C-alpha cells in the first residue's frame, strides 16, 4: 500500500508554524474590546448546606458588573443525558471542595478578586463521604437523592456471559487479587479558559472555549438559557491539550455566559492551575478485584471482575466509565466466560470523569498482571501465553463486540523482537527486569451520547481560487485532527496539501462532529472527510456542483442485553508494550531503562503524528505507574500544582521506541483507526511485570513510588 500521495507521509501538523512563532491564539489570547473578567468563589467545604449567600457588598463594589449565585441558573446538565447532575454554581448545597458557589464579573481581575472577598457565605456542614465502600449502603445524608436505597451509588452494572460455573471447573491455573488505584489527572498545559458574548439584542450567544466538545457545549448552553441551538455559537480556538479533561460541558462555561448576559459585556474566565486540578473530571480512583483462570492447555477459562470506582461529586462520563471498566477488559483475548460487577459511588471529592484510555486503564493493569502470574505458574513465556489466547480477526467477543482488523499478534511479535526479549528474559543481571502487556481499545463509540446527533458530517467546497475548504466540527486539541482531515481530502482529490484549508470546530460554520473523545476523530471525522471528498470529486466530474458532503454513520452493531451499547465500536485498536526496568533494592527506586510500544493504528495516515501519540501515551502511562497521584487532606487536594503532582519530566523520560503496526481496517479512512488512547494501556502493567521480573515484587497498588516499592521489597523478603 505505497500508492498514496499524501496519506502515509510524515508531515508537520497544520498550525505548527503558528504555534512555533507564538501567533496561534488560544482562548485566553483572544483580543476583545471592553472585556470583563470573571472569577468563581469556591467552597472550602466538602459537603455542606448553603445557609445564606450575601452578595450585596460585592454588587456595590465599583467596577463589578455582574454577580450570580446558584439560584440564578438551576438547570442541571452534564455530558450524558442520563446524568445531568451538575449546575453552573451550587444550588443550596456544595458537594466538593472547590465547587463554585458564586461568581462575579468585573472590569479588571483585581476588582473581581476584591469582589469575591466581599461575598459572605454561611455553610452548615453535612456528613462528608470519602469512602466509596461505605457509600454502597445506606448513608446519613446522601450526596444525591437519586442514588438508590439511601446509598451513594451512582451506577451499578452487572453483566455475565457464558457459563462461569463450568468454566471454573475446567480451570487448572488461577490468579487473583485486589488492586488499588489513586486519582490521576490530565495535566494538560493550557488551563481551562472561556469567553462569552451575547448579541446586542440578547438573543444570540457566542462562546469561545478551550473544549473538546463544542457541539455538546452548545447543546447544554441552549438548554440552560432556553434557546434554539442555532442561536448559540461555540468556537474552539487553539486548545492546549485535553486528554479528556475538556470533554465535559463545564460549569464555568455556563457561568461566563450567565455573567455576560447579566453584564452585557464579553466576559472571560481563565482558570488558575489550582482550579484546573479542582475541576478534575479525570481518571476514577478505583479498587479492582479480579480472578482469572486458564485450563490445562493454557487457554483462558473465565474472568471474574469487581470494580468499585470513586465518582466524586458528580456524574460526568461516569456511567460509561462504569461499563468500560468491565467490558473493555476482555480483549484482546478470547474469554467466553466473563462476569462483571461495577459500581460507581458518589463521594465528596471533585468529580471523576474521562481521561486518556477512559475507563479501562486500571482494570487493564490488573488483568495483564494476573496474566503474568498465570504464565509463571504454568512455566510458559508471557508473550507465548498471550499469543495463544488472542482474539482473531473478524470475530465476536463474549460481549458481542465485532472485531474486524486485528494487529495484536504482530504487535506482540514486534515488541518481542525489538526488545530482544527471547535472548534476554531470564538472563538479566540482578535488579533488572523485562515485562510485557497488551492493550485493547475502541476507535470511537458506535452509539452516540445524544441519540439524535449524527456522528460526523463534513462539507467540502471547491472555491473559486482552486482551493478546497473542508468544514468539519472535529476539534483539534493538539492531536492533529485538522491535519488528518486535510490529508484525507488531498489524497482523494489528488491535490497538494497546500490546496486544502480546514475550518473546524465552530458550530456556527461547521456541520456537526460530536467531539474529540473516545478516540473517534480519525476514524469517524476522517471517514466523513473522505466521503465528502469522494462526493465532491464525483460532483465536479459530473459538473453539477462544487460541494461534497460526507456523513459517518456507524454500522448497527452489538447484542441485545442491557448495556450492550457500551464499549461497542466500529473498530478496535490493539497494542503491546515491553518495559525494561532496573530496581534499586536499597532505595526502592525504579529506573525505567527503555520502553517499546507497538500499536495497531490500522493505517498511519501521518506516521510522525502517530509516533507522537504513541510517545505521548507512553509518557502519560509511565507517569501513572511511577509517580502520579492526587493526595487529599479531607476533601481538599493537597498537591494541586505541578511541583507536587509529579509528572515525568524530560530528565526522567526513558528511551521510547514507538512501533507502528498497520492492520488496514476495512471501515476506517484508508484503513486508519485510533492511536491516541489504547497506546497508554499496556505501558503501566508491562512496567509492573518488569518490576516482578526484576525483584519479585507484585505491585498491587500505584504509583510505584520508592517508599512503597521499598516496603513491598521488605515484605517479600520477610515472607
Amino acid at each position: 500500500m505505497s500508492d498514496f500521495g499524501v496519506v502515509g507521509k510524515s508531515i508537520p501538523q497544520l498550525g505548527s508554524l503558528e504555534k512555533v512563532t507564538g501567533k496561534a491564539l488560544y482562548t485566553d489570547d483572544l483580543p476583545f474590546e471592553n472585556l470583563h473578567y470573571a472569577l468563581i468563589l469556591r467552597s472550602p467545604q466538602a459537603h455542606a448546606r448553603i445557609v445564606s449567600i450575601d452578595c450585596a457588598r460585592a454588587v456595590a463594589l465599583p467596577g463589578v458588573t455582574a454577580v450570580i449565585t446558584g439560584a440564578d441558573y438551576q438547570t442541571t446538565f452534564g455530558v450524558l443525558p442520563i446524568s445531568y447532575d451538575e449546575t453552573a454554581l451550587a444550588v443550596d448545597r456544595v458537594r466538593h471542595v472547590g465547587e463554585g458557589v458564586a461568581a462575579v464579573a468585573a472590569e479588571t481581575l483585581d476588582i473581581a478578586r476584591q469582589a469575591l472577598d466581599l461575598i459572605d457565605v454561611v455553610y452548615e456542614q453535612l456528613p462528608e463521604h470519602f469512602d466509596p465502600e461505605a457509600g454502597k449502603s445506606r448513608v446519613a445524608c446522601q450526596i444525591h437523592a437519586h442514588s438508590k436505597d439511601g446509598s451513594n451509588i451512582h451506577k451499578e452494572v452487572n453483566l455475565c456471559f457464558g457459563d462461569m460455573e463450568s468454566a471454573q471447573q475446567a480451570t487448572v491455573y488461577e490468579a487473583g487479587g485486589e488492586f488499588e488505584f489513586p486519582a490521576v489527572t490530565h495535566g494538560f498545559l493550557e488551563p481551562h479558559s472561556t469567553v462569552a458574548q451575547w448579541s446586542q439584542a440578547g438573543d444570540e450567544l457566542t462562546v469561545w472555549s478551550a473544549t473538546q466538545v463544542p457541539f455538546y457545549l452548545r447543546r447544554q448552553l441552549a438548554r440552560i438559557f432556553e434557546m434554539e441551538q442555532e442561536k448559540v455559537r461555540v468556537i474552539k480556538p487553539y486548545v492546549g491539550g485535553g486528554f479528556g479533561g475538556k470533554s465535559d460541558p463545564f460549569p464555568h462555561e455556563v457561568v461566563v455566559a450567565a455573567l455576560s448576559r447579566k453584564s452585557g459585556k464579553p466576559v472571560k474566565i481563565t482558570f488558575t492551575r489550582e482550579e484546573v486540578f479542582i475541576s478534575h473530571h479525570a481518571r476514577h480512583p478505583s479498587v479492582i478485584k479480579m480472578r482469572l483462570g486458564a485450563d490445562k492447555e493454557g487457554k483462558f477459562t473465565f474472568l471474574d471482575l469487581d470494580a468499585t470506582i470513586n465518582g466524586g461529586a458528580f456524574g460526568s462520563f461516569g456511567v460509561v466509565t462504569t461499563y468500560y471498566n468491565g467490558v473493555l477488559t476482555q480483549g484482546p483475548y478470547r474469554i467466553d466466560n466473563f462476569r462483571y460487577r461495577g459500581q460507581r459511588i458518589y463521594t465528596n471529592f471533585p468529580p471523576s470523569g474521562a481521561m486518556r484510555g477512559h475507563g479501562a486503564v486500571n482494570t487493564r493493569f490488573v488483568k495483564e498482571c494476573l496474566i503474568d502470574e498465570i504464565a509463571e505458574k504454568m512455566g510458559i513465556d508471557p508473550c507465548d501465553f498471550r499469543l495463544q489466547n488472542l482474539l482473531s480477526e473478524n470475530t465476536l467477543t463474549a460481549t458481542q463486540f465485532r472485531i474486524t482488523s486485528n494487529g495484536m499478534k504482530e504487535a506482540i511479535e514486534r515488541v518481542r523482537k525489538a526488545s530482544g526479549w527471547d535472548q534476554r528474559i531470564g538472563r538479566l543481571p540482578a535488579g533488572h527486569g523485562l515485562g510485557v502487556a497488551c492493550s485493547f481499545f475502541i476507535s470511537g463509540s458506535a452509539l452516540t451520547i445524544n441519540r439524535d446527533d449524527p456522528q460526523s458530517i463534513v462539507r467540502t467546497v471547491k472555491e473559486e481560487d482552486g482551493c478546497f475548504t473542508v468544514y468539519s466540527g472535529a476539534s483539534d486539541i493538539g492531536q492533529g485532527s485538522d491535519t488528518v482531515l486535510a490529508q484525507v481530502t488531498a489524497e482523494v482529490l489528488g491535490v497538494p496539501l497546500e490546496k486544502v484549508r480546514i475550518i473546524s470546530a465552530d458550530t456556527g460554520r461547521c456541520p456537526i462532529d460530536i467531539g474529540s473523545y473516545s478516540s473517534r476523530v480519525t476514524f469517524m471525522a476522517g471517514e466523513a472527510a473522505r466521503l465528502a471528498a469522494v462526493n465532491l470529486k464525483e460532483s465536479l466530474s459530473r459538473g453539477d456542483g462544487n460541494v461534497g458532503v460526507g456523513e459517518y454513520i456507524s454500522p448497527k452493531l452489538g447484542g441485545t442485553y442491557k448495556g450492550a451499547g457500551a464499549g461497542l465500536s466500529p473498530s478496535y485498536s490493539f497494542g503491546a508494550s515491553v518495559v525494561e526496568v532496573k530496581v534499586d533494592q536499597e532505595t526502592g527506586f525504579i529506573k525505567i531503562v527503555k520502553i517499546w510500544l507497538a500499536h495497531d493504528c490500522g493505517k498511519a495516515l501521518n506516521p510522525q503524528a502517530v509516533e507522537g501519540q504513541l510517545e505521548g501515551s507512553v509518557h502519560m502511562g509511565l507517569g501513572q505507574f511511577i509517580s502520579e497521584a492526587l493526595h487529599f487532606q479531607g476533601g481538599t487536594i493537597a498537591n494541586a500544582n505541578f511541583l507536587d503532582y509529579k509528572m515525568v519530566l524530560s530528565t526522567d523520560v526513558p528511551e521510547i521506541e514507538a512501533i507502528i503496526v498497520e492492520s488496514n481496517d476495512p471501515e476506517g479512512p484508508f484503513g486508519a483507526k485510533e492511536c491516541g488512547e489504547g497506546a497508554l494501556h499496556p505501558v503501566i502493567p508491562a512496567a509492573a511485570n518488569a518490576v516482578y521480573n526484576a525483584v519479585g515484587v507484585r505491585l498491587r497498588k500505584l504509583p510505584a513510588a520508592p517508599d512503597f516499592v521499598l516496603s513491598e521489597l521488605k515484605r517479600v523478603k520477610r515472607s
Partner: protein
Amino acid sequence: MPGVHRISLEVNGVAHELQVGSTETLAELLRQRLSLTGTKIGCDGGTCGACAVLVDGVLRNSCLTLAALVDGAKITTIEGLADGEKLHPLQQSFVENGAIQCGFCTPGMVLSAVALLAESPAASESEIREAISGNICRCTGYVKIIKAIKQVAQAQEKP
C-alpha cells in the same frame, strides 16, 4: 495601594516606556500590555515553563518576574525569534520533527533550547534533557522535542 513604577525596556528589538504596578509580572506585561500572547501562562507559579522568555539572554519564567525589575532589560519572546519569515533553526527543527502537538509548551520550550545552545552550542542529549526539565510538555513524551534540539546542536557541532 501598590505603587507605580516607570520602566523602559526593549522587547524583541522594540523600545517601550511603561508605567507598571508593583505586583505586575513580566508575563502580564507582555501578554496584556504588548499583546505578545505567544508567552503562555500554564501555572502562574514557575512550575511549568510555558511563560519562559529571555531577559538579557538569560532564561526566566516571566510569571515569576516582576515587571518593575526588568527596567532597562532586553527581552526576547517567541515572537522575536524568527528573522522575518525565516524561522530560527530551532523553530524550524521543532516543526520538521513533529515536536509540536498542542503547542502550548512550545514557546517556552523553544526559548529554553535557545538559551541552552547560546551557552553550549553543541549540547549533549543529557544537557538538553536538563535544560528543558523546567518545561512541562504533556503531549509528546519529550521524544521529538529532544530530537529537534539535538539535530540543531549536532549541526552546530559539524563546521
